[in-house]
């Protein structure tokens, strides 16, 4: 295990640290509201000469991703950060980045989309981009945000993958709070991510290539999409492998899915992000009272670890999937849809209910987790039937 420095700081700051330690060649960013201080801190590192990167100040988030795409296609290691409306403005470029198989790493501070205007935490921004062909990791804590960022660089650039990777952390709760975090030293991180060896770089003039060219009717567009599908499917084992390697250095666990108290759980909450700890805290309290409660945290959303989630909850008598985003008009939130689908092939039918929680930063009070487990307990004992989607704690 490598030596580490324990610090009291914010999620934004440690993601900026991870960026610096990963030594990107180019960072393009725009300070849209809401942007985070990730790019601000990184800009400071550039100004101080602590990292040798080309820092491109662009005129919009759309341009931030466009510049990232151009730099990545040229053969540079590229990182950027965004949030909320910024990610929304990047939408068309997100698809171009993945279609051109560019290993850009982007931090996204999960924040609500307007309207009404709200800058606080939810996963609506990232979930809106879930079909864009990016690998997507979610952090529960600032520590995980730091770890995920470093892991992302290796995953994105793996020759088996070559896909852009989004590393998400909860807006304000994780980005702006002061937390206790262990940082690796520069050499360890730089050594772990290694030198970037671009594939099909435009600036490799000895081997001229074209990127993102016309592939219209009758062209290879369809096959391109199939190769993207194959790549993101392959990324699963790469994420696991890189994560395990990182765990050896950091001493911290990394799993696509991380479970707590699930071995004999009757009831479970499946959740993403910073509220997973709230669920664990309450599950521990309820275990002391005799309820067999557990938590399944999904740390990797794309590719979705369906088999792992199904294996974790298949023995449960009732499961709640908590979504911090909407998929209006669908049967439930994005995570719920994935989990329900993952369970379809099981021999036994596990009752699954969906809760939408914490939109626009609505506080995820512990009593809300109690409410969910109590509902699950009623379903598990047969005294209640699984109901329709619930807006948890809505007035």
């Amino acid at each position, binding site marked *: 295990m490598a030596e580490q420095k324990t610090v009291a700081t914010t999620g934004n700051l440690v993601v900026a640290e991870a960026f610096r330690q990963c030594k990107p060649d180019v960072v393009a960013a725009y300070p849209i509201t809401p942007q985070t201080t990730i790019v601000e801190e990184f800009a400071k590192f550039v100004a101080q000469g602590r990292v040798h990167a080309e820092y491109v100040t662009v005129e919009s988030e759309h341009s931030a991703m466009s510049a990232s795409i151009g730099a990545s296609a040229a053969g540079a290691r590229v990182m950027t950060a965004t949030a909320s409306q910024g990610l929304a403005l990047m939408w068309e470029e997100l698809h171009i980045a993945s279609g051109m198989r560019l290993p850009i790493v982007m931090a996204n501070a999960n924040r609500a989309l307007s309207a009404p205007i709200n800058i606080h935490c939810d996963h609506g921004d990232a979930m809106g981009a879930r079909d864009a062909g990016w690998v997507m990791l979610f952090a529960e804590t600032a520590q995980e945000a730091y770890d995920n960022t470093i892991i992302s660089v290796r995953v994105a650039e793996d020759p088996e993958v070559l896909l852009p990777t989004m590393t998400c952390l909860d807006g304000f709760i994780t980005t702006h709070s*002061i*937390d206790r975090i262990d940082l690796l030293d520069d050499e360890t991180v730089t050594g772990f991510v290694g030198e970037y060896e671009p594939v099909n770089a435009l600036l490799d003039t000895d081997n001229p290539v074209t990127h993102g060219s016309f592939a219209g009717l009758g062209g290879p567009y369809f096959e391109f999409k199939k190769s993207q599908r194959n790549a993101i499917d392959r990324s699963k084992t790469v994420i696991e492998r890189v994560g395990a390697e990182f765990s050896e250095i950091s001493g911290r666990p990394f799993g696509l899915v991380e479970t707590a108290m699930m071995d004999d759980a009757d009831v479970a909450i499946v959740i993403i992000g910073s509220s997973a700890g709230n669920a664990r805290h309450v599950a521990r309290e309820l275990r002391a009272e005799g309820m067999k409660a557990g938590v399944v945290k999904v740390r990797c959303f794309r590719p979705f670890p369906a088999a792992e989630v199904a294996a974790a909850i298949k023995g449960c008598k009732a499961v709640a999937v908590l979504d911090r985003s909407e998929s209006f008009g669908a049967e439930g939130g994005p995570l719920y849809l994935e989990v329900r689908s993952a369970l379809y092939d099981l021999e036994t039918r596990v009752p699954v209910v969906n809760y939408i929680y914490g939109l626009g930063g609505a*506080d995820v009070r512990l009593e809300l987790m109690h409410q969910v487990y109590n509902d699950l307990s009623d379903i598990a004992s047969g005294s209640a039937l699984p109901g329709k989607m619930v807006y948890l704690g809505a007035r």
Partner: protein
Amino acid sequence: MQQLTEIRWHARAGQGAVTAAKVVAETALSADQYMQAMPEYGPERMGAPIKAFTRISDQPIDIHCNIENPNVVIVLDDTLLDVVDVAEGITSDGVLILNTCTPAAVVKKALGLPDSVKVACVDASGIALDTIKRDIPNTPIVGAFMKAAPGIIDLETFKGLLAKNLGKKFGQEMIDANHAAVDRAYEEVTVA
């Protein structure tokens, strides 16, 4: 069992509550504790009522939400008492620390708090004006907090960290003034 202390700060924006919440958390880290510090983010307007939170524990802290049942409430401005229910949800053995010239017993009665809740009052603004020459009550009130709620963070560690943080921007004079403010509040705080 986890030893978790939850502190809720009430102040007006600009009084340094967020900084104080952070330095208290850093002090806890220096003693190898686990900690969190976060403001309740809202529109940033000088003088508007704000809240901040600090959690300190001997074990990793899992929860990420606002603090509704604080063990400690620290209020940096007594005019907030007419505006905000500062004692809301305080635990039955909790401590409320207030920057005011009003005697602690009077405050305790006015807030209608039970005997089991300790109220500690200190003229942190007056002390700050005397020592630091500016009405920044956040440093002295931490001194009062350490006296009224002992055993959570250490006085000397806090002062050491204060010197380190202030030393980045200011000279020894400012460090001494802040240390004097902390010591005076520690001595002068009265409890009911």
